[in-house]
């Protein structure tokens, strides 16, 4: 984990400046500015309803699929504006993968779940697909458990396995960023520990943004932590600093459970 003594060496992957977000007339995010570094884990914490999920979804524009939304201000990936930089949202979603709060495997076989993404982009060759599927399942620490039952339905797996399958599915299209919205909230401590281990391994070559209500989890896995409150960014810093010497009184109160 990054400590205050070592300087940041990784470039900024995602940058947000003065970003407002509205569902229809309702303002949900208000004047956000922050940077997310490549190959780091950034945790987002804050009370329920403060806009964490909404913020996450802005990075791959997935909310555009179902609701009328309005984003103003700048959001960039590798210096290119996500909303106005001429990025194709379908390509953006391939580059910026997402793992949801509730495991949502397709009602298909384990193999088909992982192969779904590559197939979308025209990958047909059986041998290559097999390789991609195995690789993704290994990365998500699921391979040994499922290698003999790849043809079985994914909906018959346990919740923790399903969530790791969803991670494998996201990894199979080789994303640059992985957004995780409370990925462990439906899991038991053992499954949670597995996924946390995974996160630490995956950040070797992936930028990870994770929303969590579990402060210990944020402290364990993340390099940076951002604290949101009512749609505003109250404070963002190295996780170590946020948890030991936060600058804002509110952050400290929240972390010690004195409000929220």
């Amino acid at each position, binding site marked *: 984990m990054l400590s205050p003594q070592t300087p940041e060496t990784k470039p900024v992957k995602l940058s947000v400046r003065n970003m407002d977000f509205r569902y229809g007339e309702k303002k949900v995010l208000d004047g956000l500015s922050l940077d997310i570094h490549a190959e780091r884990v950034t945790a987002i914490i804050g009370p329920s309803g403060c806009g964490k999920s909404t913020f996450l979804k802005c990075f*791959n524009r*997935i909310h555009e*699929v*179902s609701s009328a939304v309005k984003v103003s201000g700048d959001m960039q990936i590798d210096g290119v504006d996500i909303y106005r930089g001429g990025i194709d949202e*379908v*390509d953006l*979603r*391939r580059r910026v*993968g*997402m793992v*949801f709060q*509730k495991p*949502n*495997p*397709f*009602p*298909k076989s384990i193999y088909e779940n992982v192969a*779904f*993404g590559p197939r*979308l*982009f025209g990958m047909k060759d059986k041998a290559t697909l097999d390789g991609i599927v195995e690789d993704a399942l290994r990365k998500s620490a699921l391979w040994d458990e499922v290698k003999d039952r790849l043809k079985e339905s994914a*909906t018959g797996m346990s919740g923790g396995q399903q969530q790791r399958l*969803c991670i494998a*599915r*996201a990894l199979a*299209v080789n994303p640059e960023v992985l957004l995780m919205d409370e990925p462990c909230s439906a899991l038991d401590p053992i499954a949670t520990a597995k996924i946390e281990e995974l996160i630490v391994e995956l950040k070797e070559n992936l930028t990870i943004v994770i929303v969590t209500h579990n402060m210990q989890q944020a402290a364990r896995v993340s390099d940076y932590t951002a604290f949101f409150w009512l749609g505003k960014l109250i404070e963002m810093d190295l996780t170590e600093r946020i948890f030991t010497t936060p600058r804002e009184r509110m952050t400290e109160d929240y972390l010690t459970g004195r409000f929220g």
Partner: protein
Amino acid sequence: MPAAISYRPRRLSRVTDRVMRLALWGLALAFIAVLAVFVGAILKQGWPVLNLGFLTRMPETLDAGGGIKPEIFNSLYLVALSLAISLPIGLGAGIYMAEYAGQGRILRFLRLCIETLAATPSIVLALFGMIVFVQMMGWSFSIRSGAVTLALLNIPVITRVTEVSLLGVPRELKEASYGLGATRLQTILKVALPYAATGILTGLVLTAGRAFGESAILVFTAGTNTSQTFPDFRLTVPGETLSVHLWYVTSDGTLPDAREIAAGTAAVMIVVLLVLNLSVRLLDRFIRRRTR
């Protein structure tokens, strides 16, 4: 501090529960009994008439001993043709309404139109078909007039069933698909439609069954005669179906064995419908296992 509330099971609620269960059970049983008696009576009356000759002979117009070979063919042919027309249209319209139209006034109006069309009595469609296809287009009483009018009966139902089934696809699944970089079309084809397939299939069977049993529309568009060659795939010849035949022989009254013919025809229709429903049930189970 208020006294602790004690929660005791209430006798009454348990009794109501039991009574309700018994009542529902009784209703279901009564329904099955009525159905069994009904189907049994039809099959029993038709049984003596049912033999290979009845199924493979041409119908007679004046003498006893006619068969229903062309009527069986016409029934199946017309249902297949009408589905071939209405399935693509209904599916397309349903997909459009569920996935592309968005919300708003136009969609609500469209939905109202479709529901009205779905509730239109078939005799109204029959007269419409006769005026437009039989007379104005000059297609006369023919398979094609029948198939197209029958399609008008099917389209709203298939549209609605498709729309409802697609709206029932969990949002999480669609999000998962979009999240991997799928386009809207890919999401519809690879995620939404497979999930909705069993619902659409059920709707399709209901539609096929209704079309198979439909008489009013076909009396006025496909006619009460049938081609003398068999099997006749031409679209321009008249094509009397089983249900039309059933109606015609009993109301016309020139056949000495009209009663027997009617009983046999009814039995054949029931058997066909049973087989249809049963095979679809099996197919549905197969699909469900792979898509849910």
